[in-house]
């Protein structure tokens, strides 16, 4: 490692002064430097990162980098750099030392579960495809990260493309697949470019293509770009899309491991799942299993977002608590309000209320609380977030993304959304809550695919933990003061008559009255919140 103090010696090594006068001059100059400057009397004190950049340390210290190994130190598309940092060593080990069953045992011992959201044991998928006697098999990487605001897989594809390819190659060799696809959503053009570049470089170097590193094993990978459909993240819809058909899921069983792409046995795993594979093989034994909880081994990449002070991507060991993530790593809630809930799993997930913040992040624990690990999206919500509005927002998304095939998802989620919209507009009726809940449970248990089965989750979990907010909406109130139809803006006595609000109101709802308490015309007010943000004396009340 090069340190700043080494700089001088290095420069002098390369730039030796030639003439004698010069040499003398440099000698005198350096002597004076040593006497006169602070550096020799008071050397620079080097403080550790956690003292000088506390927030960086807080953010980084609890993270464990498995999928994001060498985070910050490695050039995404530099193959030599990847190779120099144990790159493709795991693949070599699998091809030269271990047999496929041993590889699967390694994966099984380390408890790797699918990171796309369902948490299905990876070794079972690989085993099923491996034991299938069919000649042609496929390998697929699901890079159609569709959750709004989630960007874990994007980061992995953009920053660690070789790791993904290595993981896929290991899987392909283990199960006997010789052809594969990376389904990457077109909204990630950089990811497409980097993976494409990585595939090309691997091919040139003999790490992909025919007869990889002279082993007789062949694997040809290509990219298929998605076209803007969240439902194509569902594995059967994804495969339909690769085959050139409309992305509509089909009934499972049969599972892709039995009948996948073009009815052939197919391994289909999430990006993050593949990135964990090389680490597991290289570190062997049960190193991965040593991290995490009993049922959920290893690490998970999360995307922290919402009202959090320090948002971004983090990779943490399973079993860490929500509290630690939000407060220690994320720095707590920005803006001074209290944490209300954390929404995990995006539109398929549920919320964990602040009272349950000490919940360890683990597949089964989250499911038992009515939430879902999902692909890793974590949105921190504070008191100014309306839980009914949040449920409505997510349901609006899933309803819009439904493929439209099955009755319960296509029409059921629409009717649920009708009720939520009515609630947010103040037209809710007392019978609405029961109807919403019944419909939600029915849609959950009768939909054909994961989209319909999980779309009711945000509704059910907010009903479970925040039913009082729903009831308030029926009475015409929004406790979080968010739903426009249910709130009024008014001026308090703190008003100093500066008329800034009247000047900035886009709806001309405030009459210009200098030195007097201003008044907001409720009919004209569009609840944009501009007056509140410009008021210097915090005299605007929203209720």
């Amino acid at each position: 490692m090069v340190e700043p103090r080494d700089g001088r010696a290095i420069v002098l090594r390369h730039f030796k002064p030639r003439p004698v006068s010069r040499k003398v001059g440099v000698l005198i100059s350096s002597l004076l430097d040593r006497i006169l400057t602070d550096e020799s009397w008071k050397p620079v004190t080097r403080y550790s990162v956690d003292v000088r950049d506390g927030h960086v340390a807080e953010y980084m210290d609890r993270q464990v980098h498995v999928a994001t190994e060498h985070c910050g130190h490695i050039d995404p598309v530099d193959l030599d750099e990847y190779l120099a940092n144990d790159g493709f060593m795991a693949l070599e080990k699998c091809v030269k030392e271990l047999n496929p069953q041993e590889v699967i045992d390694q994966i099984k011992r380390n408890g790797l579960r699918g990171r796309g959201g369902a948490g299905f044991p990876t070794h079972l998928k690989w085993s099923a495809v491996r034991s299938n006697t069919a000649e042609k098999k496929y390998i697929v990487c699901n890079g159609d990260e569709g959750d709004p605001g989630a960007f874990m897989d994007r980061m992995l594809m953009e920053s660690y493309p070789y790791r993904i390819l290595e993981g896929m190659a290991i899987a392909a060799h283990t199960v006997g697949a010789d052809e594969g696809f990376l389904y990457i959503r077109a909204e990630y053009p950089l990811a497409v470019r980097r993976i494409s570049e990585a595939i090309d470089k691997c091919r040139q170097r003999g790490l992909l293509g025919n007869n990889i590193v002279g082993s007789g094993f062949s694997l040809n990978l290509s990219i298929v770009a998605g076209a803007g459909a969240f439902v194509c993240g569902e594995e059967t819809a994804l495969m339909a899309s690769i085959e050139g058909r409309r992305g509509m899921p089909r009934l499972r069983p049969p599972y892709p491991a039995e009948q996948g792409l073009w009815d052939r046995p197919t391994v289909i795993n999430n990006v993050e799942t593949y990135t964990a594979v090389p680490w597991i093989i290289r570190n062997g034994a049960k190193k991965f299993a040593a991290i995490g909880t009993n049922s959920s081994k290893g690490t998970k990449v999360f995307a922290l977002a919402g009202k959090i002070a320090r948002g971004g991507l983090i990779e943490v060991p399973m079993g860490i608590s929500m509290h630690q993530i939000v407060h220690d790593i994320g720095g707590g809630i920005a803006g001074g309000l209290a944490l209300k809930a954390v929404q995990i799993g995006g539109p398929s997930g549920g919320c964990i209320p602040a009272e349950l913040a000490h919940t360890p992040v683990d597949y089964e624990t989250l499911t038992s609380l009515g939430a879902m690990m999902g692909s890793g999206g974590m949105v921190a919500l504070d008191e100014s977030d309306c839980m009914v509005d949040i449920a409505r927002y997510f349901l609006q998304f899933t309803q819009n993304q439904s493929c439209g095939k099955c009755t319960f998802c296509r029409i059921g989620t629409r009717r649920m959304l009708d009720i939520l919209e009515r609630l947010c507009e103040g037209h809710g009726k007392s019978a609405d809550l029961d109807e919403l809940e019944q419909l939600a449970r029915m849609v959950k248990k009768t939909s054909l695919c994961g989209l319909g089965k999980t779309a009711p989750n945000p509704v059910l979990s907010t009903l479970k933990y925040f039913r009082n907010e729903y009831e308030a909406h029926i009475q015409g109130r929004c406790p979080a003061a968010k739903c426009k139809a249910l709130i009024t803006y008014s001026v308090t006595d703190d008003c100093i008559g500066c008329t800034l609000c009247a000047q900035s109101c886009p709806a001309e709802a405030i009459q210009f009255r200098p030195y007097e308490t201003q008044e907001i015309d409720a009919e004209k007010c569009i609840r944009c919140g501009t007056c509140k943000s410009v008021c210097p004396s915090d005299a605007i009340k929203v209720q």
Partner: protein
Amino acid sequence: MPKLTIDNRQVEVQTGVTILDAAEKLGIEIPTMCFLRGHKPSTSCMICVVRVEGIDSLVPACGTIAQEGMRIETNTEEIRQARITALELLLSDHVGDCMGPCQVACPAHMNISLMIRQIAAGKLRAAIETVKKDIALPAVLGRICPAPCENACRRRQHDKAVSICLLKRYAADVDLMSQQPFMSHTHPNIGKHVAIVGAGPAGLAAAYYLRRQGFGCTIYDEHDEPGGMLRYAVPEQKLPRDVLDKEIATIAALGVEFKLGQRVGTAVSMEKLCRDFDAVFVAVRQLKDGDAESLGLGAKSDCIETDTATYQTSVKGVFAGGDAVRRRRLTVRAVADGKEAAVSITQYLSGEQVTGPQKPFNSRMGKLKEGEMEIFLSGASDSIRIEPDGLDGGFSNEQAKREAQRCLHCDCRKPTSCKLRRYTQQYHAKAGKYKAERRTFVQNISHPNVIYEPGKCINCGLCVEIAGEAKEKIGLTFIGRGFEVRVEVPFDHSLAEGLARIAEECVAACPTGALAFAGDSEV
């Protein structure tokens, strides 16, 4: 050969068959709408869901392969509730009328739209058959009925209602004047007899329908001639007596015995009727003081107390209808009573549970939205309502045909084969359970023989699949996402191009009235 249990019954099946197949082997019926033998299961309507022990969600029987050891329930409360919800969700997004508003408004629910189409096609024998299925005295009613059907006629919102009453009168008059007026088929005599008290419209209608079922009918009336109020209250110039006589004769011709000039309650006792006959239908005119007691029946404010659905009185085997059970109402209501009471009496005499006639489910489109009337008008004549100048105030042949072409064909073209209608009725699903704004009515007539109404489509995908299997060049496909997904011909081609060869099969496969033939509808 997997062995599995369905509804606690064991069955062994071939490997690879579905739960639906296995259930069929046991004779257990599971409802399906989007499934058609010979084609890949769509698994879209989800009405065939069943509970398999050990699986969290409900699974569609049509697509789930039967496995060894499966334990399946097909008819628990949970399953029934799921089926009902599927139906109610589909109904909340269904645009169309099963029966035209005219048929709904008619107390006898006569299939008016069908009759009108048959008159337009010149099929007058078929028309009178259609009429007499529900109305026993059409020539009479064609002269005195205030026509609530015309009040409900959708055409009224554009110009004037279709002249339904006169069209029915025309069909009836043509029949009465023909060489051989239509004689309904009657079942062979079963050996049971019904006494009918009152030869008015209710009693005459009851006799007509009971005779068709093969029951012996004897009508008692205190007057010397049959007809009741029709003869003794309605003026002659409104209802010529020869028309009345001819129409009564068509009923008598089925083999009805008349005992005129005998008042039940004085000349003949109710006890005697109850002894000598297997059932009694009381259809005397509106009650006067003492009538109820003389008949041995309970009454409340001049109306005999009856069950509204079955017309049963408090006395076993005695039914009542017409003005005797409700204050003076429309004659057509009395005629309908006679028809409906005949259903109850038939059930009673056949030893079945008496529930009265089954009300068929009816989907209603309601008020038309802007632009929708034009769609209905595009298939009808634009003539204004024709005033009659035929024989004594009725339509001439040519007028009847022209007036009949003004009908907008509001009724669905597949009212009897529609599976959505059938299962809604069977499971008692409610159309208004999930209230929502109705989609706009759309009709695709870009095919010479087929009409496609996407508002009735349940997105089953059968037509898409069939067109695909037949390798149609254009075919059909799903377009859009979420709630807005519709089946359409891709790239704005016409339906004729989309279903160049395979239209007939698609129409036959369509489980609702979405895809139907433009020509003659089902009866």
